């Protein structure tokens, strides 16, 4: 059967998964400044992530999707995406926050139990980026919820995303 054959071939051909990227010192510095050490120690080496598109163009989303592909394989680091904020440790937020998404983002943040971190992804998420000043935009993610880490890029590549997210884990165990 073709499905079985395809699966078996994947086992014999060897993985495409690449080595993890080098540590991002800037990200670690930002995390050290913003995240309380005791809280980080509690969570061990696994993080559940809830992604929230608060207004992005979808560019960040497609690169976040790539984190789950065979090359980047996010789950081997103990990082995984969850369907509900109630299951999450981290909110991964993209986009300038549109005024239309402000309430939804706040509700999602409030539904996430403590301790939690917010990672703002992309240039727009930092300060609204190209969309700053629009009547329809509230600002960067930090204008609506507290942000622990910014990952820059338009969009950030999966490697840049991984560096940022691994920094969260490293920050957690370094304490």
């Amino acid at each position, binding site marked *: 059967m*073709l*499905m079985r054959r*395809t*699966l078996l071939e994947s086992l014999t051909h060897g993985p*495409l998964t690449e080595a993890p990227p080098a540590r991002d010192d800037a990200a670690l510095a930002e995390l050290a400044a913003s995240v309380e050490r005791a809280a980080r120690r509690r969570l061990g080496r696994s993080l559940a992530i809830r*992604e*929230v*598109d*608060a*207004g*992005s*163009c*979808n*560019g*960040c*989303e*497609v*690169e*976040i*999707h*790539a984190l*789950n*592909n*065979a*090359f980047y394989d996010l789950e081997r680091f103990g990082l995984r*995406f969850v*369907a*509900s*904020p109630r299951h999450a440790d981290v909110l991964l937020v993209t*986009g*300038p926050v*549109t*005024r*239309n*998404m*402000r*309430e*939804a983002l706040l509700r*999602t943040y409030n539904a996430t139990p403590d301790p939690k971190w917010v990672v703002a992804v992309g240039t727009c998420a930092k300060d609204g980026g*190209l*969309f700053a*000043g*629009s*009547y*329809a*935009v509230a600002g960067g993610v930090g204008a609506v919820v507290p942000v622990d880490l910014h990952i820059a890029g*338009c*969009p950030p*590549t999966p490697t840049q995303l991984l560096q940022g997210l691994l920094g969260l884990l490293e920050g957690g165990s370094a304490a």
Partner: protein
Amino acid sequence: MARLTDIARGEPVAGHRPWPRVRVTPQTWRTLANEMAEGRATLLGLWGDAGAVHMAVMGEEPRDIIVASLECPGGTFPSVGALHPPAIRFERAIRSLFGLEPIGAPDGRPWLDLGFWNVEHPLGARTPAAAARLAYEFLPVEGEGLHQIPVGPVHAGIIEPGHFRFTANGETVARLEERLGYVHKGIESLMAGTTIARAAELAGRTSGDSTVAYSIAFAHAVEAALDIAPPPRAQYLRALMAELERLANHFGDIGAICNDASFSLMHAHCGILREFVLRAAATAFGHRLMMDCVVPGGVAAELHAEGIAAMTQMLTQLRQRFPRLVELYDNTASLMDRTAATGIVSAALARQFGAGGYVGRGSGRDFDARRNLAYAPYDRLDFTVPVLEAGDVNARVWIRIREVEQSFALIEQIIAQLPDGPIAVAVGGGSGEGLGLAEGFRGDVLAWLRLDAGRVVRCHLRDPSWLQWPLLEAAIEGNIVADFPLCNKSFNCSYSGHDL
């Protein structure tokens, strides 16, 4: 067959290219609406301006396109949606953004304005918003044993936000009503008064997964307005980027559709193919998604030998791996059981809405802007446009499969024919109006703009999803709720592109 310029007689506007723009009377406006309602013309777009509305219409003859403009003294205009349903949401958006009132419109509810802005009619009078936010009335549904399921705006996966209000009878969907606008960023407002370069960046970030298609449509509009032509080498490089974008998205979609039927093996393998494409794009053009690589006047960066080698290597890998995945899709009966006869869009609806892309072509509508509008370099390339009749999820998967195969051939031809020469012409600070179209992976992207001394006065962008989102509501009717992700993924409409 009469051309639209015969039907829509009016005062032609000088400096509008490449198709005519005419100022019409309310009577002629209604005549055009009637042509569309009776199936002799297709609505390409309908948008507002300062004290006026514009409608882009396509006739039955090849390349018969017209922009009809109607002044709105008194702030009203005859509703096109009253005769022709595809216009309904456009008019709701015009009303919300501009405050222009469509007389006789069947649906008076706001669209894109969810009541969260500090202003009303932001592209019109821009008055302070009312203090109290009126509750949105979803359409009523009557019947026994019906319950509502609200989904979104935040969705369970890594996906854009939107609201879906289901009315279900047990597992069966009695009605789906969409409420969109959550990622409205006010792009058209940001574009007004800005430079061409800045507006190009904004256009490329209207729908990030279609940044190349949007950049090409915008560039076409600017070049038409200024009556300049990009060099041939740039046209070929744009097409190369467009085909890479098409491949990357089709691979992602094919995998994601299968994943929503729990067939994650296809998703994993398609994800590998998508990654091959993005890496080759990064090597060749400096950015995985190729943002800011297409600019008005040409392309931003040269394609060197290393890039061509990356293209060739990518094609070898894709041609080697893709046929097995097609075979896998075709031979997995349990997967076919989910995708066949699910989420059917009728041919009549596809035709009425002028639905493009795999949504239209999967339901018998034989339109592809690359062939029908024959813009360079596609007029010199050999390719076929796949069309299927079944209109189900399966048909939309097969259209993508066939388009992937066509894109392989197109990329090979582009590399073989790539002419030497400059990669851009100067844009300058001229004035004019232009209409541009480009075939993105979802369908035709439309860009219309007015330039004055090198600045954008008004730019309108129309995502192909405007003519597809409503059809999703029709497609899901009678299907089970659990098949919604499958249907939705098979459409993969843009939220950000739609919301602007």
